[in-house]
């Protein structure tokens, strides 16, 4: 009897998977009109500009007669500014807001109001933690796997043993916090990392000067620090520059998530021998396809729905393993850059 039950479950599971595998990917019809806003955490950061390029590319491909605006707040006014833009988008009857959230759950009421007014909210890069007021999150990579990649890079740079510290963005960035947590878990659970000691987590607020100073403060505070791990493109570049300026590159290495074009010189001179990233253009492109599908009513946003995102291929909406009651689309994978491939990628 017990076995029969199990068989039944297994059969149902198989049926389920076969159904997924054979479900036709929805081909989005182009030319539907929908105004949209691409809302980054704030303006003036290269990766957000790249995401915008990707979104504009998709916008042109799908021949949406509506306008795609790239609108963001200033870094000092990020939270209030994002809430303001979200609220205004509902008033403007925008079809969709493509949000890289920097406001934590504070944006949830505004996002919910926008959804009630018929504006779809698709998050990318950084989701709304509670998932409230969000149609779906386009995740760049699986958050857990980022933690393992960072732990692996640390392992390789440190030769398996030594002190490291994390230089993150803002203390409230949902994405960075999740990755740091995932890295801590990887470090704690796998025996091969047992001699790597994480001594501190500090925040450079995603501002170059603050991050630079925090990096130097870390070196002062921990004389045996061998590695600064920075899961943000602003932080990793500032830390690498700080180590280079102070001639500390032999002693303290830098790693994390960085842009090849910004990191190439530090990788070649050995200050940042390894770092990783995904393509933000692709992220913007995929997010736009998702938002367009939802705003034009061609996608419902239900779990299991599969659609074709232009040149990037097919993607499926799934339950977000990191957030209860939230949905995601997983883009993945990402690239680890070293001396061997960074120059080609920087061009």
């Amino acid at each position, binding site marked *: 009897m017990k076995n029969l039950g199990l068989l039944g479950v297994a059969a149902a599971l198989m049926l389920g998977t076969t159904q997924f595998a054979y479900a036709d990917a929805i081909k989005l019809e182009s030319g539907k009109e929908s105004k949209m*806003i691409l809302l980054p955490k*704030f*303006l*003036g950061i290269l990766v957000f500009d790249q995401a915008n390029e990707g979104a504009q590319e998709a916008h042109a491909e799908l021949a949406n007669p509506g306008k795609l*605006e790239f*609108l*963001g*707040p*200033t870094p*000092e*006014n990020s*939270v*209030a*500014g994002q*809430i*303001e*833009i979200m*609220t*205004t988008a509902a*008033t*403007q*009857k925008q079809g969709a807001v493509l949000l890289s959230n920097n*406001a*934590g*759950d*504070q*944006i*949830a*009421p*505004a996002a919910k109001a926008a959804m009630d007014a018929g504006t779809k909210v698709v998050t990318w890069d950084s989701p709304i*933690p*509670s998932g409230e007021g969000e149609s779906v999150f386009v995740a760049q990579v699986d958050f857990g796997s980022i933690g393992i990649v960072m732990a692996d890079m640390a392992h390789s740079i440190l030769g398996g043993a030594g002190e490291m510290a994390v230089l993150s963005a*803002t*203390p*409230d960035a949902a994405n960075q*916090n999740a990755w740091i947590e995932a890295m801590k878990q990887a470090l704690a659970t796998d025996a091969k990392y047992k001699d790597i000691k994480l001594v501190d987590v500090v925040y450079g607020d995603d501002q170059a000067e603050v991050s630079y100073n925090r990096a130097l403060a870390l070196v002062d505070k921990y004389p045996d620090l061998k590695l600064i791990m920075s899961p943000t493109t602003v932080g990793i570049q500032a830390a690498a520059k700080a180590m280079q300026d102070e001639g500390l590159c032999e002693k303290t290495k830098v790693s994390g998530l960085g842009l090849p074009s910004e990191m190439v010189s530090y990788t070649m001179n050995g200050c940042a021998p390894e770092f990783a990233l995904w393509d933000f253009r692709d992220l913007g492109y995929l997010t736009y396809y998702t938002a367009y599908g939802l705003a034009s009513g061609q996608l419902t946003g239900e779990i299991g729905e599969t659609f074709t995102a232009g040149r990037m291929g097919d993607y499926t909406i799934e339950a977000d393993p990191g957030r209860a009651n939230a949905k995601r689309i997983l883009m993945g994978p990402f690239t680890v850059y070293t001396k061997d491939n960074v120059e080609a990628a920087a061009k």
Partner: protein
Amino acid sequence: MKKRLLSWEGLLLAAFATIFAFNAISLPQFLTIPNQINMFQLSIEKVIVVLVMAFVIINAEIDLSVGSMMGLSACAFGWLFQQGVDPVVAIGLCLLIGVLGGAVNGLFVAWVGLPSLVVTLAALIGFRGLARVLVEDRGITDFPDWFDALGQQGLIGPMTFAMISFFTLLVVAWIILEKSAFGRHTYVIGSNRDVAEFAGINTKRHKLIIFVATGLVSAFAGLLYAARVGAVRGDVANGFELDIITIVLLGGASIFGGSGTLVSTGLAILIVLNLRNGMALHNVTGHIQTGVIGFLLIASVLVPRLDLLRRITKKSKGQE
């Protein structure tokens, strides 16, 4: 003096009318009730604190700690709520924190005699630090429904509790400043503290009351913010003090004290809100918005000095 202020009010009124008309003509959504509500709601906590900041500045002081006090009050509420304290009790405790924080500022300024710039700068850092200690790097959310509803939904028609509070406080502040002895003393002390002392005004007590009121209203505004966004973090209301002071100065209050009215402060509030709303609906990005408000502030400081400038140039010409 009176004439200059009157003409300043006229100028503000003209500026407001221009911006309002431009918005109304160029934006079909502008005059809808939901948009007007949103326009106030998005900045409601700031403009509530503007009302008390006007008293502080007319009294020839400054309070840089208001944004941090808003943050501290919001975070304290989040923390207390998480510890299982009854939300109503938590609200009371947060308002008490506002009173105490304001009293510390007031005591150091009035009795110890330190400049308010220094005292409240220290408080800005101290209150923010406390807020961050309380909630660490977390966000706290899932407040009771009635609390969130109070911040987000209309209480009387579409008017939210925060908006009703603002308009009530505006009237109360106007009566106190324009019609009461306390208001007159605020101007006298702001113009010349020594004269006020000779006239027998208890300037220390007066300043203490103003700082306590500012702390209390800031704490109240912080709670309104927590209710409106339904979540708190350590950076709540970070940097709000600058926007608040900007609006008061735009309203024509002199940073050296002794002048300013609540009518022109009210007009300055309307100008900034309408300008921001219009720019947002026209999809103007954050950097340009900040630039426009900055330009407005410079103009508001310069324009009243124009006649002075003219007199100086005339004099130098006469000497030639």
